[in-house]
């Protein structure tokens, strides 16, 4: 794989905006996709995910803002940047009257001469070697998705942009797809995965940006998002009743309730001092602390929390 550009980000946007008449589909988006990661671009249907991808790939023009792909400004140096980008936008489309191999030949012809030499390797990579000479109209949706991935590999991509890649796949297909994406990242490629499926993003990606109504509302690592900004901690002690009494009297505690894992404590603010003070008081009361950790939430919970907060604000 050729490495192009020295920036730590393979995608950088600044104030990126797309309007369709009065409707703002992408609103002033600032996005940074780190090199060598699986990056999830997560949002509900209609949030502007595909529109952003279409702008990055030059399929539609931006109304405002700037973009850089692999360190190159686009659209000014679009051809150079896209030479090392593979993409599946929405459902991968093919000439159905051509075979899988012929479809790849057509795309390879539009890429660098070496792309032609990658056809067999790409077909083998996605497990389609045996059926490469069948017409695409006989392919299942899963096979077409895999052929789409093979097509994007013809670029020997530094960056793979996959828009809702598991749409229509059965559970086994989704599992295979997940493994394949992790394989690409292990090779040093960056994968930008757009999806509305929170579970999928959580399982595949290292970093995520959550987008809603055209705006990126939060961006960071999955681990940080699952804990970051969260004011809830889990505490388990040798005497939960006494611990509850101490917690209920503490000024930094908004609420405390017992559950199977221990006591779920919501703080009035995300304060390290408050957490230190609580642990100190529990120890001084003679309680053994068995657990004291930030309560992790699933990406889904975090996503719903963020988007519902936005809805309330709107």
């Amino acid at each position, binding site marked *: 794989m050729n490495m192009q550009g020295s920036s730590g980000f393979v995608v950088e946007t600044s104030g990126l905006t797309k309007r369709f008449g009065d409707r703002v589909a992408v609103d002033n988006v600032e996005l940074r996709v780190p090199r060598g990661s699986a990056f999830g671009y997560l949002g509900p249907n209609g949030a502007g995910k595909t529109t952003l991808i*279409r702008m990055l*790939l*030059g*399929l*539609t023009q931006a109304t405002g803002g700037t973009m850089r792909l692999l360190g190159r400004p686009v659209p000014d140096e*679009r*051809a*150079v*940047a*896209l*030479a090392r*980008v593979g*993409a599946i*936008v929405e*459902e*991968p*489309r*093919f*000439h*159905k*009257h*051509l075979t899988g191999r*012929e*479809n790849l*030949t*057509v*795309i*390879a*012809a*539009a*890429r660098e*001469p070496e792309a*032609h*030499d*990658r*056809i*067999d*390797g790409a077909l*083998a*990579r*996605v*497990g389609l070697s045996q059926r490469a000479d069948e017409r695409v109209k006989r392919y299942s949706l899963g096979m077409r998705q*895999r052929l789409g991935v093979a*097509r994007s590999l013809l*670029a020997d991509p530094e960056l793979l942009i996959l828009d809702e890649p598991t749409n229509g796949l059965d559970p086994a297909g989704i599992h*295979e*797809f997940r*493994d*394949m994406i*992790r*394989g690409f990242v*292990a*090779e040093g490629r960056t994968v930008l995965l757009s999806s509305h499926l929170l579970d999928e993003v959580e399982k595949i990606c290292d970093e995520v940006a959550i987008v809603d109504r055209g705006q990126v509302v939060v961006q960071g690592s999955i681990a940080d998002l699952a804990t970051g900004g969260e004011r809830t901690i889990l505490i388990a002690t040798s005497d939960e009743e006494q611990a509850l009494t101490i917690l209920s009297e503490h000024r930094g505690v908004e609420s405390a309730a017992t559950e199977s894992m221990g006591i779920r404590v919501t703080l009035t603010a995300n304060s390290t001092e408050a957490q230190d003070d609580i642990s100190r008081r529990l120890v001084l009361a003679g309680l053994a602390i068995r657990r004291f950790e930030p309560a992790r939430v699933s990406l889904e919970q975090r996503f719903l929390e963020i988007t519902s907060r936005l809805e309330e604000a709107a």
Partner: protein
Amino acid sequence: MSTTTVTATVPRTRAQRSWRPRLVSAEFLKLRKRRGLLISVFALTVLPMIIGYTVLLTLHAANPGKHGPAGGLKNLSGSMDMLSTLSIVAGILVGATLGAGDLGSGVFRELVVTGRSRLALFAARVPAGLGFLLPIVGAGFAITATGSIVFAGSLEAPSASLLVGSAAWLGLVASLALVLALGVSSVLGSRGTTIGIVFGWQIVAAPVLLQIRALGSLRDGLLGAATDRLAPAALFEGSPNVKMSLAAAVLVIAMWTIVPVAVGAWRTCTRDA
């Protein structure tokens, strides 16, 4: 699916060694593999010539007194009249498919994301389309030309220069139809609509307009008027419907070539993919 990297040494295929640029080869491949299109073009250009000469030969063999020889200049004229019209239809089919094929299948988007210039993607269609259409039209002409000489019998056989001129003229009218349909379909993005519009114009409306003398010099702007002017004089009896200078005919043809290509290229470069 495995995540193991497979490195395969692949010998370069014939397509890469070809004299044709790779994009043109790819466009040609797309056309060549459309069985329906291939059969239609063949059926429009080669088949009628085979059937026509077979019928003429049979009639002549059955009753030489009533039916003259199948070949000769007169029969060449008749078959060229039919072949030129059918070649225009074939050109329209190929041009419409070229312009709308990628859009209709959704592959245009996949081509655009390669970063290759849209203008280059469009430009490759013209030589690919001509490379597909002209050999088949040429085969139809070859049958006609051969038949007109071999089966001339007592009739006057066409000269070599007339045959060369006729072939060039036939290639011109077929190519112009292809370019016109390519431009229109690149703008409309629909093969069916393009076929309807260009067929209706070239095969129905334009010939009718050519016959309306009241239109005067307005008829000079019609593509059919210009191509009629360039037709070999010995091929068709009588003078063209519209009298115009050679320079004017060339100019009109140039406009009917440049405008559809320019508009089609512009739309290909500017449309959302």
